[in-house]
């Protein structure tokens, strides 16, 4: 014998509750199927509810006057005999409110249906639509247009194969440097001469008069307030060289700040690499490689203005004798590394080290200092950010590497401390045009920002 529960049905198409008006049976009573159990009152009418079961009344689960929700049990009946006297043995049971399929059971209206949230299985990323061409959302397309980026040239990194905002922004920041530039090979020919047309060379003939030079006074004053230092030797040579250069070549200096954090990381890694265990590695090494690489892309910085009887010429060097300005006990010397363009990183590091050591010991030879094609001056060791260096005689470009220090920088929209430095370059404007010098400095800076570009 099992106990059945009779749940209050929705007798009026959408009712949610009813009031028990009067019970027609009591616990212990015997009831037959369809006997009236109770009278209820709904929002629409008074209704008698017939029993779905035969058996003995167990418990009345609600009292007269109580308001009961549709779907709640109102009475239990201990199931006795089969419900259908003359029919099959199947007992008449009232199904639970959840009918097969989870649907709302008719007769239990909407009250029996409890709002629930089924738990979804973790979904996989759906592939993007298969439209021909680039997959990119409209706002990204607008961004690309605003930044002048060709979407088709951007490598997409989105999960569904779409070009993301980041992709576009990164591409834009690279493109401004590398747009339309190819980096040519060094080639077989070492020297190339470009005649400058007569009108042009006249126009740029150095000024007739140099500013007057104050004659040296060999005396010392008696009160010690003034001291005169005679200019001789290296200083004299350097000074006259500077005058010659400064007053013959129109100097223009351009500079840029750059986040050199990756260079610092690379330097750190090289330092701990077994291949570089025996050489000094410093940011100057990376700078040197950068200058060599950038010179290949803007050949004019690695050249010289040459005046001649038949007119001026620009001599283009297809090799780099990289001068490093060194402050030595003897004075400012600029020894250069011959054919630096052919050197591997290790060889260049060694060459730099040798050069620096030799210069510091005062042993740089005149040959070392002759034939330079382009120069780096490292003013960063003095803590300076930038300067307006004077060209080494016979050259058209000199690059100043500033100090590399932690400064606030914007990375991915946030301000973060990064290793920041300034790259400055002075150029002979007769030889190097404005866009050339800017491009060259930008190229050098981009290497400092991303040394991996040297893999080009």
């Amino acid at each position, binding site marked *: 014998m099992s106990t059945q529960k*009779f*749940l209050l*049905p*929705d*007798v*009026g*198409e959408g009712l949610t509750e009813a009031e028990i008006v009067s019970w027609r049976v009591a616990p212990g009573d015997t009831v037959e*199927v*369809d006997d009236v159990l109770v009278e209820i009152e709904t929002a*629409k*009418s*008074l*209704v*008698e*509810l*017939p*029993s*779905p079961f035969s058996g003995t009344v167990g418990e009345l689960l609600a009292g007269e006057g109580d308001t009961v929700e549709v779907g709640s049990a109102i009475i239990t009946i201990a199931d006795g005999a089969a*419900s*259908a*006297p*003359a*029919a*099959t043995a*199947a007992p*008449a*049971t*009232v*199904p639970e409110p959840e*009918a*097969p*399929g*989870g*649907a709302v*059971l*008719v*007769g*239990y209206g909407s009250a029996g249906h409890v709002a629930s949230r*089924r*738990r*979804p*299985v973790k*979904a996989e990323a759906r592939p993007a639509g298969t439209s021909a061409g680039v997959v990119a959302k409209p706002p990204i397309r607008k961004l690309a247009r605003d930044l002048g980026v060709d979407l088709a040239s951007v490598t997409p990194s989105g999960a569904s194969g779409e070009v993301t905002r980041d992709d576009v922004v990164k591409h834009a920041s690279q493109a401004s440097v590398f747009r339309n530039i190819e980096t040519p090979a060094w080639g077989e020919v070492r020297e190339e001469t470009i005649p400058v047309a007569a009108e042009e060379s006249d126009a740029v003939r150095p000024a007739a008069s140099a500013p007057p030079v104050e004659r040296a006074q060999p005396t010392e004053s008696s009160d010690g307030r003034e001291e005169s230092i005679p200019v001789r030797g290296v200083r004299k040579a350097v000074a006259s060289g500077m005058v010659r250069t400064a007053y013959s070549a129109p100097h223009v200096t351009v500079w840029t700040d750059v986040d050199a954090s990756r260079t610092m990381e690379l330097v750190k890694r090289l330092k701990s690499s077994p291949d570089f265990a025996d050489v000094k590695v410093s940011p100057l090494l990376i700078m040197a490689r950068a200058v060599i690489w950038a010179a290949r892309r803007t050949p004019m910085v690695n050249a010289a203005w040459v005046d001649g009887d038949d007119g001026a010429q620009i001599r283009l060097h297809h090799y780099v004798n990289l001068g490093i300005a060194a402050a030595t006990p003897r004075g400012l010397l600029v020894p250069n590394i011959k054919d630096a363009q052919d050197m591997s990183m290790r060889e260049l590091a060694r060459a730099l080290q040798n050069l620096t050591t030799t210069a510091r010991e005062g042993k740089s030879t005149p040959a070392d200092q002759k034939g330079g094609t382009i120069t780096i001056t490292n003013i960063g060791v003095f803590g300076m950010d930038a300067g307006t260096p004077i060209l080494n005689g016979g050259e058209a470009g000199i690059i100043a590497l500033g100090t590399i220090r932690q400064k606030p920088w914007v990375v991915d929209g946030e301000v973060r401390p990064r290793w920041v430095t300034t790259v400055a370059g002075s150029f002979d404007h007769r030889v190097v045009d404005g866009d050339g010098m800017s491009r060259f400095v930008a190229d050098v800076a981009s290497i400092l920002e991303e040394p991996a570009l040297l893999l080009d």
Partner: protein
Amino acid sequence: MESVTVPDPTVPDALDASLPVDDTELVRILAADGSVAPTPAAEQYLPLVDALPDAELEQFYRDMVSIRAFDRQATLLQRQGQLALWPPSWGQEAAQVGSARAARTQDHVFPSYREHVVARIRGVDPVDIIRLMRGLTHGGWNPYDPKNGNTHIYTLVLGAQTLHATGLAMGLAFDGKSGSGDPDRDEAVIVYYGDGASSQGDVHESMVYAASFEAPEVFFLQNNQWAISVPVATQSRSPLFRRSAGYGIPSVQVDGNDVLASYAVTRAALDEARAGGGPQAVEAMTYRMGAHTTSDDPTKYRTTAEEQAWGRRDPIERMRAYLEGRGAGASFFAEAEAEAQALADDTRVRTNALGGLDADQIFTNVYSEQHPLVEEERRWFHAYEASFEGGAS
């Protein structure tokens, strides 16, 4: 102007005489007490009744008793939460049994939504009607399955089926399936509707078309006095059978609680229609003893006295008295009762055993040919259901 007769609840016994004012038009054969008392208008129909064998008369009784038991059982099932609703046919058994038994096998039947015994007599399984009311289908049976006796499914929009019936009847005429003079071959259509529906435009349009095209059709109006809570006096200021007459359709008013008269007038009407006489109409005066449906509460708009008065004109008791008068014995009535109870029990058991629907059916049979949007949504739905832990619920 003639006044429609509304039963006067304060004068119960005057009902017989008050319905209608002029008895010469009402067709009645059996008085309320079961005695044979044909009205003048019934005279011409007596031969049709006289031709009925006893077995057929007994069948009328058994039909009525069984369906009342079924109807009561269905109401109880609704009160037990097994059905969303139930529209009872209680009180209208005679009109429905008489008219249904008057139709021939080859005829076509268009019910409204309360003609449970009509459907049963034609061969429809009553549990198919239950399934409709249980929310398992919008139809319930296939009218084109021969076992269902050309019975169309219920139509819930009031009166809409009258146009469908007229169209079908027009088609019969076009194809020569009617009007040949052979009543065993000629087909006719009978369409059922109520007093409330008789106000609907579609019903009037259907009569316009039926008359214009001489459709072999019988319009069978059960005037059960109430359209939910609105009395028939609000639907019309003249007897309803005069409406169809206004369209040129021969119309007769019959006592719908008299199964013999209901049978006779419908038989005559159907045979006239199938013979090429064009559409015919019958208004059967009866009473909706129960509520409109199980959601309704008649205590709000009509009196117990009125219900009791009509109860004294009960169609089953009337027929029982008549059969007793003809010598039917206690065993016959006991058997009829037992048969009725068996139907009720079987209905209850089978209803309780009915299962649910597969959600895929939402997307099935929207069109006869595949429709890409429906198929797309069907696929999406199945994928969506499968995306939950435990799969589709």
